[in-house]
């Protein structure tokens, strides 16, 4: 009885053996950007708190926020927020039952990737 023949069941696909595809990459990036955004939010809120507190404190926070480090965090966060934004809109579109066929899903994925870069550049130019 214990020697019963084992059934060869299919294994579930695993991330290491899955070929990377646009819908998969863009889905993972949505989660990554959403969580990475907390860095930009922390820096922005700290900067606002410093502005509310005193001249000295604001000088410290503003120096950090406008240094190369601040530029890196805020530019990265800007791209992350635009990416998460477009991917979120795509999520709402998917939820409504649209765009779920493979060619459309691939196009929507590329729209998120290219669109987020374009919107990041436009925003930087607008607020300079």
């Amino acid at each position: 009885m214990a020697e019963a023949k084992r059934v060869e069941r299919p294994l579930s696909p695993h991330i290491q053996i899955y070929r990377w595809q646009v819908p998969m990459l863009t889905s993972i990036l949505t989660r990554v950007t959403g969580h990475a955004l907390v860095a930009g939010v922390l820096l922005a809120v700290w900067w606002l708190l410093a502005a509310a507190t005193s001249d000295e404190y604001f000088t410290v926070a503003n120096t950090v926020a406008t240094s190369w480090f601040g530029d890196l965090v805020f530019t990265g966060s800007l791209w992350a927020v635009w990416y998460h934004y477009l991917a979120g809109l795509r999520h709402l579109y998917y939820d409504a039952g649209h765009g779920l066929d493979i060619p459309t899903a691939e196009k929507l994925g590329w729209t998120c990737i290219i669109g987020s870069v374009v919107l990041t550049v436009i925003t930087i130019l607008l607020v300079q």
Partner: protein
Amino acid sequence: MRYLTARKRAEGKGAAHTGTGHHWSMTVSAVALAFLVPVWLYIFGRALGQSRDAVLETFASPFPAILTGLLLVVGMRHFAMGATMMIEDYVRGTARKMLVIFVISLAWMIGAVGIFALAKIAL
């Protein structure tokens, strides 16, 4: 004795056991953020890099102040729920509980600090 039938207890709850409440909250906050974020990015981007007086003037005006307050409340709620979902996907047991409590606390903390700063500037 159970007063609820098994069907009544299970109906509409699905695999998450809590129904669609989480998903619907994320949908509502996502739509709200879709309106709030672009305007806020413009206001914040304009204020960043300016003198303290200019920054205080910006965030003391009603529109930027209310917008920032809304963004903090809705955004941090959205973050707490999204982070909870991610942790529930990858972590189990006590570590899961501790991390979920940590991200929810972090979200409230960021929100409270931001609202405090806004109140101090705007009022």
